[in-house]
C-alpha cells in the first residue's frame, strides 16, 4: 500500500461512500443459527434447512401466519370426496417460477409441477430420482409414501390425489416444508444438462424471494420476487441471512443493528433485550412440550403406583423457575394448550412427596432403590437445560427415598438408545410438526411408535384404538371427542410427566413490522417490512 495514488483513492472512496447499497434501507438481515445443507427441502428435516428454503418456495397449502391452520397457497381450494380418500386440488393461475441466472421459465406454474414434486418422492423409478438419488425423510416419516396411491392431473390446473386410507392430517402435512412445489421445467433442464444435483444448490421456486447466492457459514442472499402472485407479501428489496452460530454473538449483532431479526436468544439474555428501546421482543407460548418418559417395560415403572408416586414428587414450579427462568408455562397435559382438541379439564396430581412415599411403599419399592435418569446432552426449545432439570429431579426423588443416577450420552447415541428403551426414565420432548393432534397423541404415545418416538414404551390398547379411530375421521368435533378421551386415559396411566411448554422469545429491531412467530418455529419473511 505504498502507492499514494491507490491509498488516496481508497481513502476518498471510504470517506465519500454512503450506505453500502443504494437499497440498504430496504434490506433486512436475519441472524440465523446455522448453515443449511441445501435447498431441496424434501431431503432435509431441520429448521435451519426449512428456514433457508422458506422464502424461495410455496406449497399447495400453507400454514396461516402465526397459526396452525392450513390455508390455500398454490392451490386456491380443494375438495375432499365423501369417503375422504380423494383430494382434488384447484391450482392458482398466473403463478410464475423465478427467473435466475441458471433458469428462465417459458411457462407458468401448472399441474405438471405438482406431479413432478410428488411423483419424485413417491416413485423410486422416477427418472429424476434415478439421476439424483436421495431419500425423503419427512415424506416417509409421515407415511405419505405408503398412503398416497396416486397423483394425477385432470386438466392443466387440477390435480387429484388418491389415498389408501383416510388421513385427517393430510392437508396439514402438505403445508409442511418438505412439500414445496418444484418446477418440472427446471428439472427437465437439469436432466438434459446432466446437472440434477443443482436442484439442491441452485433452487428455483415460486416464493416471495428469489435465491441469489449462498456462501456456506456466512450468508444467504435473496432478492424480492417482483412477479410474486401476492405482491402485498413482498415488501423488502433484499433479504439476507447472516449465519451466526453463537447465541451471544447473534444478540450483540442485533443490538448493533447488524441484523434486524435474530434467532433463539439464551433465556438469560431475554430480560436485557426487552429493556433495549431499539428492540422489540415478541413473546409467544411455544408449540412444544418437555416431559419425563417412564419406561414402563422396566421394573418398577411397569407399576402404575410407582409412576404416580414419581409424578407427584416432581416440584414443577421450582423447575420452571430454575430451568426455564420464567420463560415457560407449566405443562399438565400430553400436548400444548394451543393444539386444538386440548382437554382443559385435565389437572395435575398435587405435589405431595409424603403421599408419593406411601405409594412407593405400597408398590413394594424399598427405600434407597437405585434408578437411572437420562438427561439430554443438548439444549432444545422444549428443554433449555436438561442437566439442571435432572439434578433437580434427583433431589426431588431423593426426598421419597429413591437414589437417582444421572446418565447422559452424546445426542445421537442418546436418541438411539432411548428409542431402543435402554433407559429407566428419560428427559425428552417434542415440537409440533403440522398442528394436528395426531402429531402428539399418535406420534409420541401410540403402540406403533414404540421403537420410534414412544420413549415410555407404553402400549395401551384402549388408548391406541381411540387415537387410531380419531385419525381416520375427518369431522373435527368427532375427532376432538376421541382425542379428549385419549388424553384423559393417558393422564390416568402416567406414562409421562409433562413438565413445561417453553415460551418462544423472538427479539427483533423495533423497525421491523409484520413479523410473526410461527408455532412450528419456522421463520418466514413474507409480508415483513422495515419502518424508515
Amino acid at each position, binding site marked *: 500500500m505504498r502507492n499514494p495514488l491507490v491509498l488516496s*483513492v*481508497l481513502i476518498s*472512496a*471510504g470517506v*465519500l*461512500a454512503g*450506505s*453500502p*447499497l443504494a437499497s*440498504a434501507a430496504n*434490506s433486512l*438481515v436475519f441472524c440465523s443459527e*446455522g*448453515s443449511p*445443507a*441445501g435447498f431441496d427441502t424434501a431431503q432435509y*428435516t*431441520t429448521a435451519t434447512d426449512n428456514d433457508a428454503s422458506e422464502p424461495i418456495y410455496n406449497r399447495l397449502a400453507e400454514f396461516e401466519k402465526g397459526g396452525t391452520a392450513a390455508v390455500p397457497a398454490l392451490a386456491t381450494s380443494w375438495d375432499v370426496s365423501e369417503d375422504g380418500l380423494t383430494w382434488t386440488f384447484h391450482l392458482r393461475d398466473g403463478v410464475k417460477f423465478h427467473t435466475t441466472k441458471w433458469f428462465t421459465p417459458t411457462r407458468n406454474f401448472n399441474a405438471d409441477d405438482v406431479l413432478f414434486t410428488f411423483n419424485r418422492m413417491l416413485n423410486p423409478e422416477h427418472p429424476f430420482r434415478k439421476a439424483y*438419488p*436421495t*431419500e*425423503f*425423510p*419427512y415424506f*416417509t*416419516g409421515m407415511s405419505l409414501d405408503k398412503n398416497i396411491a396416486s397423483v394425477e392431473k385432470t386438466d392443466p390446473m387440477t390435480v387429484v390425489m388418491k389415498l389408501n386410507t383416510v388421513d385427517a392430517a393430510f392437508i396439514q402435512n402438505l403445508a409442511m416444508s418438505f412439500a414445496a412445489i418444484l418446477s418440472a421445467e427446471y428439472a427437465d433442464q437439469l436432466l438434459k444438462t446432466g446437472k440434477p*444435483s443443482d436442484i*439442491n*444448490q441452485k433452487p428455483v421456486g415460486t416464493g416471495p424471494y428469489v435465491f441469489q*447466492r449462498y*456462501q*456456506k*457459514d*456466512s450468508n444467504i*442472499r435473496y432478492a424480492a420476487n417482483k412477479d410474486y402472485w401476492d405482491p402485498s407479501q413482498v415488501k423488502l428489496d433484499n433479504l*439476507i441471512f*447472516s*449465519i*451466526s*452460530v*453463537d447465541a*451471544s*454473538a447473534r444478540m*450483540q*449483532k442485533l443490538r*448493533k443493528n*447488524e441484523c434486524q431479526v435474530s434467532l433463539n436468544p439464551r433465556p438469560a439474555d431475554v430480560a436485557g433485550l426487552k429493556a433495549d428501546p431499539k428492540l422489540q421482543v415478541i413473546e409467544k407460548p411455544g408449540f412444544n412440550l418437555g416431559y419425563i418418559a417412564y419406561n414402563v417395560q422396566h421394573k418398577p415403572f411397569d407399576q402404575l403406583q410407582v409412576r404416580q408416586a414419581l409424578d407427584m414428587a416432581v416440584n414443577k414450579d421450582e423447575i420452571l423457575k430454575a430451568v426455564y427462568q420464567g420463560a415457560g408455562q407449566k405443562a399438565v397435559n400430553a400436548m400444548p394448550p394451543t393444539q386444538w382438541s386440548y382437554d382443559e379439564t385435565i389437572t395435575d396430581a398435587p405435589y405431595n412427596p409424603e403421599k408419593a412415599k406411601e405409594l412407593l411403599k405400597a408398590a413394594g419399592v424399598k427405600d434407597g432403590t437405585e434408578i437411572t435418569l437420562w438427561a439430554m446432552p443438548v439444549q432444545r426449545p422444549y428443554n433449555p437445560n436438561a442437566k439442571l432439570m435432572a439434578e433437580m429431579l434427583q433431589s426431588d426423588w431423593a426426598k421419597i427415598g429413591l437414589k437417582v443416577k444421572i446418565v447422559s*450420552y*452424546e*445426542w*445421537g*447415541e442418546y*436418541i*438411539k438408545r432411548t428409542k431402543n428403551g435402554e433407559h429407566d426414565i428419560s428427559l425428552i*420432548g*417434542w415440537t409440533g410438526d403440522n398442528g394436528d393432534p395426531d402429531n402428539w397423541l399418535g*406420534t409420541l404415545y401410540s403402540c406403533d*411408535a414404540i421403537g*420410534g*418416538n414412544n420413549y415410555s414404551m407404553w402400549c395401551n390398547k384402549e388408548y391406541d384404538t381411540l387415537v387410531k379411530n380419531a385419525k381416520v375421521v375427518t369431522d373435527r368435533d368427532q375427532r376432538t371427542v376421541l382425542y379428549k378421551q385419549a388424553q384423559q386415559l393417558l393422564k390416568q396411566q402416567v406414562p409421562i410427566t409433562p413438565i413445561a411448554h417453553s415460551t418462544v422469545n423472538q427479539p427483533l429491531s423495533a423497525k421491523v413490522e409484520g413479523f410473526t412467530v410461527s408455532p412450528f418455529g419456522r421463520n418466514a419473511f413474507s409480508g415483513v417490512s422495515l419502518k424508515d
Partner: protein
Amino acid sequence: MFSFIARRVGLLIPTFFGITLLTFALIRMIPGDPVEVMMGERRVDPEMHAQAMERLGLNKPLHEQYIDYITKLAHGDLGESLRTRESVWSEFAALFPATLELASAALLFAGILGLLAGVIAALKRGSLFDHGVMGISLAGYSMPIFWWGLILIMFFSVGLGWTPVSGRIDLLYDIEPKTGFMLIDTLLSDQPEAFWDALHHLILPAIVLGTIPLAVIARMTRSSMLEVLREDYIRTARAKGLSPARVVFVHGLRNALIPVLTVVGLQVGTLLAGAVLTETIFSWPGIGKWLIEAIGARDYPVVQNGILLIACLVILVNFVVDILYGFANPRIRHQR
C-alpha cells in the same frame, strides 16, 4: 541433498496412511450414523434408513469402506459431503481462504508485536516493562479463547462501537467471491470502500486468534535474545563501536530469530486449531467451523478428507522447514 529430500518424502507416505486410517476410524467410533443424526427426535423409517445407508455405501463392512476411500483418494477424488452433496474439495476450496486470511492476519499481529515486546523486554531485563510483558504474555497464553473473544466483543464492539461484532464484512455490501480472500475481493469489486469494512471486521478475530502465538513469540524472543546478547560476538560488535541499534537488530535479533522462526512454524498448527473457536465466536466462515459441523452431522467424507487436507498442509509446512534447515545447517542434512 537429494537423498535427504528422498528420505523426508519416504517418511511422508506412512504418515499419510496413518492419518487416513486414524480419521477413518475415529469418526466411525463416534456413535450414531448420519441418517439417524439428521432425523434427531423424528421417526426414522427403517426402510428409508436402509436405503440411505446403501446409497451412501455405509452398509458395507468397514474394511471395504476403507478400501473404497483409499481407492477414491488415489484417483484424487475426495468424495462428496453426505449432507450437502457438494464435493469436499469445492467446499474446502471455498472456505479455506477465509481461514488463511484470518490466520495470516493473526500471525502478522502476533509476529510484529511479539518480536517487538520480546526484544524490548530482553534489553530492559528485570525492569517493570519486562515483568509486565512476561506477566501479560503468560496471561495471554492461558486465556480461554472463547471468553477472550466475547470480552473483546463486549468492550470494543458493543461498548465502544469501534469494531463490528462478527462476520467478514457488512452484509449490505454484496461482494462476489472471486479469490475467497475478502480483502482482495473487495478491492476487485466495484465497491472499493468495502475494503475498509472488511479490514475492520478482521481486527478483533485476528487479535483473538493471535493472542496465544503472540505470547509464545514474545517469551521465545526474549529468552533467545538474552542468550544471544551474552555471546562473544555481540561483545565484539559493541567493542568495535557499532551503534546499539545495529548491535541489537543486525547482530542480536538476526541470530535470536532462528529458534523464534521454528516456533512460528509450529504455530501454524495452533492457528489452524485455534481458528475453530475464533471462527465460531466471530461467525467467520472458515474450515474450523466447517469441520465441527461435519463431526456433529457425522459427515464422514468431510471429516476424513477435511482433516487430511489440513494435515497435508501442516506436513507440507514442516517439510519445507525441514528442507530449509537442511540448507541452512549441513549437520542436519547429513544425520542418518
